[in-house]
């Protein structure tokens, strides 16, 4: 131990009962300052997580309203509610909003809020980066919508194929907004993903080995790894497109040796892994929360965790299945089609694990259970229609028809929205201290479930009847009238369900019954702390000895010596904001981390980044330079060595106060 640095310290171990002077002091250390100051500067993962959730839901509502307007237009043939240009902007923004501004951010919200609580940590590994990730997401969302009120929103589809999105065919600011907004959003996703990966490696409670982390953690970890590898492709693609449009480069320009197919490759190399990034954490929500309502641990934890990773790995070699019709040789298509079908195997593993969990468990029909059980059926429907589109010759028919629209909505609503709503109902008591309503919640579920299937199942039929995607109207003699009317009705029923859910949410926030720490009798660490949790999460650092810390006494009742998880006694870290770092594989304690305090820097870095992009959009180069200077100053302030973080000599303090 002689090689320890001079300021090494062995933290004391003990209890910290609520209400004790030490606990109150700890709360003071971690609490964000009150008012607007704290609101802008906080780096608390719980605040950031809830902001992600709320912001993503606002975008969900915006995307939903866009969808409803389109469904009014498509309810009847030859309708003239929308002009073609309005329709193009609406379906583009609907896709951009739902995929980029709702589906992943909402899951980041859950993971941001839950990860440290689930892992027994005080915060994410990089709290300020976490705050930056949120601010960039919010600003990128606003950026992407900034031209919408002027009728110049992105209008070439979320997939934004060149040359349609090139300058020759799209002269307005529409596509530049999209291109720069996506690069900005990519920064948010990247820093967020890096944070999750490092948090998993360093921030787990002692004893939480890799085989004890909940499946949500596996899902988000896998998604984050996927994002880190996939996002560069799309950021590059959009940046090259912006260069083509603004500076006359020729990456995609046919007349000068560029290739439109390059865009499709770069885009789908990103977008297909992304599809898994927006469903795997949601599947993790189900894998963790469904067993709570089956009164047993998940069946097949290890196969489910491995299938999560396998899905993502295979997900990187299937992007060509979006490009079967581009003239790529049949042999290559056969390979990518086969890989796309193989991806059904890990999905089958997960499906049977969920069904087995219900079968061998004792289901409790609370509202979240309904969402998770409903999800299983929608997952299977969306999965098998995916197998159909993976078969190359069949995809040559199905591709670009409403069949694919049906498929992707079963996947994205079925596997994302249903688990998300179930997850909100499930963790609402942890978020707010109050439960959502049970009877009204069940009614809401049925309205959503019936509305969803009424709205989206007929789209399969429309697709088989040959209805192409992204048409703003259709003629009455194509045989699509009835299915479209049913779809439009279903979409409004679904929308009514969403409104009911929001009403329940708001009502319960004020009036819901008080929940207590663990209203569902759930097994994971987040339920061991108060609802809502204190700012420091855990007064003492827990020591975890199983994947179900709160169920140990019951699971191991024949061998009580295995129930060793310690929750109310552990390491006391209260010399400033401190967290414990553990080793990657076995979760043994390794170091005391000095956690950064609240700061305006992430907000300012995010704001200046966005303004740089705004200046680039407008070609106001002096403004871009000025904002770059602001960015550099903010970043310097962020990085400035701080005494409390041990980056600078501490001020002289009375001896014996800090070093143990």
């Amino acid at each position: 131990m002689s090689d320890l640095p001079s300021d090494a310290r062995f933290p004391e171990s003990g209890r910290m009962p609520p209400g004790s002077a030490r606990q109150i002091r700890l709360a003071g250390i971690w609490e964000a300052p009150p008012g607007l100051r704290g609101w802008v500067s906080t780096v608390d993962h719980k605040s950031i997580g809830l902001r992600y959730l709320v912001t993503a839901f606002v975008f969900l509502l915006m995307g939903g309203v866009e969808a409803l307007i389109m469904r009014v237009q498509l309810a009847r043939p030859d309708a003239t509610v929308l002009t073609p240009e309005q329709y193009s902007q609406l379906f583009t923004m609907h896709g951009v909003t739902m995929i980029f501004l709702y589906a992943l951010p909402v899951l980041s919200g859950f993971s941001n809020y839950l990860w440290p609580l689930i892992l027994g940590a005080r915060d994410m590994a990089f709290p300020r980066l976490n705050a930056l990730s949120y601010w960039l997401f919010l600003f990128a969302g606003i950026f992407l919508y900034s031209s919408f009120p002027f009728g110049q929103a992105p209008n070439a589809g979320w997939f934004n194929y060149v040359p349609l999105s090139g300058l020759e065919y799209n002269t307005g600011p529409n596509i530049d907004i999209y291109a720069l907004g996506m690069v900005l959003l990519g920064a948010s996703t990247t820093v967020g993903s890096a944070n999750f990966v490092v948090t998993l490696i360093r921030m787990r409670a002692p004893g939480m080995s890799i085989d004890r982390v909940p499946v949500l953690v596996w899902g988000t970890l896998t998604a984050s790894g996927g994002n880190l590898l996939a996002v560069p492709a799309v950021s590059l693609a959009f940046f090259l497109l912006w260069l083509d449009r603004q500076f006359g480069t020729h990456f995609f320009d046919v007349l000068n040796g560029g290739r439109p197919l390059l865009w499709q490759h770069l885009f789908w190399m990103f977008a297909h892994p992304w599809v898994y990034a927006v469903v795997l954490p949601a599947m993790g929500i189900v894998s963790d929360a469904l067993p709570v309502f089956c009164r047993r641990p998940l069946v097949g934890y290890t196969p489910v965790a491995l299938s999560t990773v396998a899905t993502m790995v295979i997900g990187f070699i299937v992007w060509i299945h979006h490009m079967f019709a581009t003239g790529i040789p049949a042999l290559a298509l056969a390979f990518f089609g086969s890989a796309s079908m193989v991806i059904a195997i890990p999905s089958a593993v997960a499906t049977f694990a969920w069904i087995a969990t219900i079968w061998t468990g004792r289901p409790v029909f609370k509202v979240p259970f309904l969402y998770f059980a409903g999800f299983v059926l929608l997952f299977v429907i969306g999965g098998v229609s995916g197998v159909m589109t993976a078969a190359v010759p069949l995809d040559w028919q199905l591709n670009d028809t409403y069949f694919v629209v049906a498929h992707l909505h079963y996947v994205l609503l079925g596997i994302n929205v249903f688990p998300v709503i179930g997850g909100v109902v499930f963790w609402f008591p942890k978020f707010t201290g109050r439960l959502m309503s049970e009877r009204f919640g069940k009614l809401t579920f049925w309205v959503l479930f019936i509305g969803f299937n009424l709205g989206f199942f007929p789209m399969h039929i429309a697709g088989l009847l040959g209805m192409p995607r992204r048409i703003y109207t259709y003629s009455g003699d194509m045989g699509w009238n009835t299915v479209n009317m049913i779809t439009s009705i279903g979409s409004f029923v679904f929308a009514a369900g969403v409104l009911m859910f929001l009403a329940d949410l708001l009502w319960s926030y004020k009036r819901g019954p008080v929940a207590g720490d663990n209203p569902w009798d759930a097994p994971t660490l987040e339920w061991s702390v108060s609802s809502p949790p204190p700012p420091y999460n855990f007064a003492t650092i827990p020591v975890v000895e199983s994947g179900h810390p709160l169920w140990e006494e019951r699971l191991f009742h024949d061998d009580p010596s295995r129930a060793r998880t310690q929750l109310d006694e552990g390491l006391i870290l209260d010399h400033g904001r401190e967290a414990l770092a553990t080793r990657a594989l076995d979760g043994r304690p390794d170091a005391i981390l000095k956690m950064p305090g609240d700061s305006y820097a992430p907000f300012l870095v995010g704001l200046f980044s966005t303004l740089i992009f705004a200046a680039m959009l407008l070609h106001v180069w002096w403004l871009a330079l000025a904002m770059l200077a602001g960015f550099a100053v903010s970043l310097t302030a962020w990085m400035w060595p701080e005494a409390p973080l041990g980056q600078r000599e501490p001020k002289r303090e009375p001896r014996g106060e800090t070093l143990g």
Partner: protein
Amino acid sequence: MPLAGVASQVHVGDGAPLNYFLHAAGPAAGPTLRLDWVFTAICVAVCVIVGGLLSAAILRRRPDVPLHQLAHGTSGLRWIVIGAGLSVPVLVAMLVYALFTLNQVATPAETPALTITVTAYDWWWKVAYDDAPDASAHFVTANEIHIPTGEPVRFKLKSADVIHTFWVPRLAGKTQAIPGQTNEQWLQADAPGVYRGQCSQFCGAQHAHMAFEVIAESRADFAAWSAEQARAPDMPNDAAVTAGKALFLDKCAGCHAIRGTDAQGAQAPDLTHLNSRRLIAAGTLSNTAQNQLAWITGAQRIKPDSLMPSIALQRDEAASLSAYLATLK
């Protein structure tokens, strides 16, 4: 006229001309149709089985025990082993079947005798019959593709602007028309008839109105049609027709071409044999004199943002232009 013979054979049966789930009319589409049925049947069966298991799992009777007590006993892993164990062979069988089908429809059994070059434009299709050795037999038409029945026909697909997708659901799957490259597609119609096609890749404002028709007819009828198309139309000596032609050359010839005249525009459909076609405006309107005028004067109302302007015409101008267009048989 071959057209009359064809018109009586139009597939109107089910009222969904792009339906590829119930109808396939040739060897490039037939194997896929059967694949579709088999896959659909398996997928429905999977949904029913899994839905049944799920319902049974939820609803099966259980002893009443306190909530606090956890369910014990079985690990349940057998479910995953059996479930995945049954899924994998089914999936592999589906995959093999799909690959065999791919092999069947990817290339025709015999080398096509006829090659047609289709170039996609915003928002219409140029169709060039230009593979005959004799250049005088070459001709260009638009939005209506005639093919002989019972033999494979090769298509070279090009794009003049953005990416479009060539798709005749009852005859074959989709292939993109991508600027800067030439893709190939083959199809074959076993029976005479009219097969509707449609652009399926979003290509801008009027993607919805970018249809076309494939008209399959006997070899003899096809040969007659081809000869007719290759010929320049006669122009009767009539004052109204002459005035209409002058008007056409003034207002339309910048974009449209009519062989044998000074109208040589290449940005819009070749109108040499306009009246031989069943539809105008890329499958949007039936081809009547009335609709022709409606289209000329109201293109921006019928296909907003299309490249065809709405052209204001005096009553006498409309009459003479109509008279001229009527000669383009």
